[in-house]
C-alpha cells in the first residue's frame, strides 16, 4: 500500500528529513510492499486542513505540532506548561516518558487520530529589539507568538501583548518595530536571521515545543496487526531521532548565536514565578494531566 504523510516544514528541516527516513525504512522493512509518499511544506494544506484530511482518511499520516492538537484537546496544553522542564535534555526525557505518552490515548476519541509518539523542536526563547533581562522588561511589549492558547496565556500573564503575525511577516515587522519581540527557538532564529533585526536574546528556556506523529484513525482501523507494528516501530524510531537531533544541536546553536554581535541575558523559573502561578491557576482546570506531568518532570529533574 502507498501511504501519504504530510507536514508543514520545508524540505531542509529536520522534521522533513525524519519523514523521508521513515519512508525509506518502511519501504526497506516491508521489502517494497509498502511505501510512504512525503508531502512537505504544507503542500496538502496547513495543519488544520491536514487534520481534516486525516479524519476523512484522505491523508494517512502526519507530523503535527502539539499546538495544533492542543487547540482541539485542551489537555495537551499541559505539555506547554511554563518551566515544566528546565532544559532540552529534560524535555527529551519527558517526551519519551509514559506520563507524556499516555496523553496520546485520548486522540482517537477526541480527534479521530492515533498518536504514535512525540518529536520536538528547540526550547522557546525570547528575541527582542530592546533590552530584555526578564519578564519585567516584556511588560506591554508587542510579542509575536504562534497562535495557540497555552502560549498566549503565558505571555498575557507575563504582561506582554501577544500578536499572532504570520511567519513571513516577522522579519520586516521586527525591522520596522511593528512588533517588539518574538517567541522562537534557536533553530528558526538562525535560519531566518531574525537576530539581524533584534539583537537582545533572552535565553529563558521557558517552554518546550513538542511535535506528534499521528496516523488517521480511519486508516488505522483497516490495517493488519503486522502493518500497525511496522508503522509504529519505524515512526517511533524516527521521532526519537528527531528528539535526539534537536537535543544534540541545541548547544551548538546556542554557541552560534553567542558568536553573533548580540546582547545575551538569561532567565529561569524563579524570574517568571508570578506568571507561572497565574498560568497554573487557569490551566490546572483545563488540562487535567498537568499534575501527572509535573510529577514525572520532577522525577526527571531529581535524577
Amino acid at each position, binding site marked *: 500500500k502507498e501511504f501519504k504523510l504530510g507536514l508543514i516544514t520545508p524540505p531542509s528541516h529536520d522534521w522533513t528529513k525524519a519523514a523521508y527516513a521513515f519512508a525509506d525504512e518502511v519501504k526497506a522493512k516491508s521489502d517494497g510492499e509498502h511505501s510512504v509518499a512525503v508531502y512537505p511544506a504544507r*503542500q496538502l494544506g496547513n495543519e488544520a486542513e491536514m487534520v481534516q484530511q486525516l479524519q476523512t*482518511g484522505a491523508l494517512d499520516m502526519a507530523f503535527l505540532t502539539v499546538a495544533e492538537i492542543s487547540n482541539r484537546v485542551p489537555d495537551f496544553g499541559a505539555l506547554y506548561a511554563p518551566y515544566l522542564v528546565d532544559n532540552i535534555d529534560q524535555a527529551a526525557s519527558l517526551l519519551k516518558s509514559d506520563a507524556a505518552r499516555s496523553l496520546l490515548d485520548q486522540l482517537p476519541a477526541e480527534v479521530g487520530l492515533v498518536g504514535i509518539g512525540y518529536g520536538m523542536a528547540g526550547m522557546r526563547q525570547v528575541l527582542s529589539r530592546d533590552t530584555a533581562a526578564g519578564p519585567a522588561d516584556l511588560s506591554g511589549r508587542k510579542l509575536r507568538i504562534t497562535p495557540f492558547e497555552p502560549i498566549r496565556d503565558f505571555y498575557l500573564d507575563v504582561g506582554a501583548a501577544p500578536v499572532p503575525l*504570520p*511567519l513571513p511577516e516577522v*522579519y520586516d515587522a521586527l525591522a520596522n518595530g511593528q512588533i517588539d519581540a518574538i517567541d522562537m527557538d534557536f533553530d528558526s532564529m538562525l535560519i531566518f536571521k531574525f537576530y539581524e533585526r533584534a539583537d537582545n536574546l533572552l535565553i529563558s528556556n521557558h517552554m518546550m515545543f513538542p511535535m506528534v506523529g499521528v496516523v488517521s484513525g480511519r486508516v488505522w482501523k483497516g490495517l493488519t496487526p503486522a502493518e500497525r507494528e511496522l508503522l509504529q516501530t519505524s515512526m517511533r524510531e524516527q521521532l526519537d531521532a528527531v528528539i535526539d537531533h534537536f537535543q544534540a544541536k541545541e548547544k551548538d546553536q546556542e554557541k552560534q548565536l553567542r558568536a553573533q554581535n548580540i546582547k545575551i541575558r538569561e532567565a529561569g523559573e524563579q524570574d517568571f514565578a508570578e506568571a507561572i502561578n497565574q498560568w497554573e491557576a487557569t490551566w490546572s482546570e483545563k488540562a487535567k494531566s498537568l499534575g501527572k506531568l509535573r510529577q514525572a518532570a520532577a522525577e526527571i529533574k531529581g535524577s
Partner: protein
Amino acid sequence: MTFIPFFILLFCAVPIALVLALTSLWYIWTSGNAVLFDSYPQQLFSAIDSYGLMAIPLFMLAGELMNEGGLTSRLINMSRILVGGFRGGLAYINLVANMMMAAIMGSAASQIAIMSRAMVPAMEKEGYDSAYAAAITAAGGLLSPIIPPSMLFVLYGVLAQVPIAEMFIAGILPGIIMSFLFFLVIAVIGLVQQYPKGEWPSRKQSVEFFLMGLPAGLIPVVIIGGILTGLATPTESAALASLGALLIGKYVYKDLELNHLPEILKRTALNSGMVVMLISAAGVFGWVVVYEQLPQAAAGWIAQQTSDPFTFLLMVIGVLILIGMVLDGIAALILVVPILLPIAQQQFGISPYQFGVVVCLTLVMGLLTPPVGAGLFIGSSMTGVPPMKIFRSLMPFLFATLVTLVLLAAIPELVTALI
C-alpha cells in the same frame, strides 16, 4: 486525460474559476480517490484563508478611490512634465507609473487591475490602440512581484527558508533589467508604428500639473513611510492608501462624492471577489494535482536530463512556462519549490536566491499567458479588450521577459551581487 474536460470546459466559455473547480472534481472522480470529495468544500474555503490575499481587495479599493477622487489623473498629468514630449509619451508614462506602483504593491493581479482602469482610457483618448495600451499596462504589472515588496518572494522565502529581506534585494537588479528592456520595446514599437507624438506641457501648465499632483504624490509617501516607521505591514499599508485616497479625493481635490461610496464598494467586492475566487479554485486544483503527485513526477524527470546548471535552469524555465499556462503564480510556486529547490541546490549547486528569482519571474509570466492567465483576464475585464488581443500585443514584452530570464539563468551574479 485530465486535460480533455479541462480544455472542453475552457473553450466553451465556462467561467475559468469553475473550469478549475469542475476539472478538480472530474479528476478526483477518475482517479478513484473518492475520499477527497469529503475535503473538497473545505479546501475551497481554506485555499483563500490567507492573510496575504487581503492585499487584493485592499489595493482594489485604494485604486477605485484613487480613480474616483481624481488622484490618478493628476499623477498622470504630473508625469507629462517628465516624459510627455517623447513619441509615445503616454506609453512611457504608463511604464514609469507602473515602476512606481511596483515599489508599493506586492501583487501583479491587483496592480494590473488598478493601472488598467487608470491608464488605458487615458491612452485610448490620445489615439493609442486599446489592445496595445492594455498590453503595456499588463506588462508593467509584471514588475510588481519583482521590484520589492513582493508577495511571491515572501512566499518563496518561507518555502526555501531564506531571509525575505535578502530575497527582496535579490529582485532589484532583475527588476531594473526588465524595466530597461521594456523601455526598449516601447521605443522600437513607437518608431515602427508611429505612435502619437507627445506634447510638452507649457510652462504655466507644468507648474499647475506639478502643484495639482503633489497631494496625490503623498500616497506613495504615506505607504512607504507607514512601512518604514513600523506603523503598518505592506499588506496593511494598502488600507492606509485607501484612507489617504479618500481624504485627498474628498477634501483636497473635492472630486469624490461620498454618495458614490456604495457603488465603489460594490465594484471593489465584485472585482476582487472574481480574482480571489479564481485563486480559491486554483488552490483546490493544485491540491488535487499535488495529491496525485503529478508535479513531483515532472520534477524528477527534469533532474535526470542534464548535469549542467544553466541547462537545468533553462529546462525549469521551459517546464514552468508550461505549468504557468494553466496554473497561477502562488499555487504553482507551492507545488514546484519543495520539489525542485532541493534538486537545484544539491545536485546543481545553484544559489537559492538565483533559483527563487528565476522561478518567481517565470511563474509571474504565466499570469499573462493563455489559456489561464489571471493578469490577462483582469486586464481584459477592466478594459473590455478581448484577452487574446491583449496577448498578441503582449508578445514583444513577454519576449523581453524571456530574455531577462535567460540572462538571470546564465549569470547568477545579476541576482546575488547586491546581497
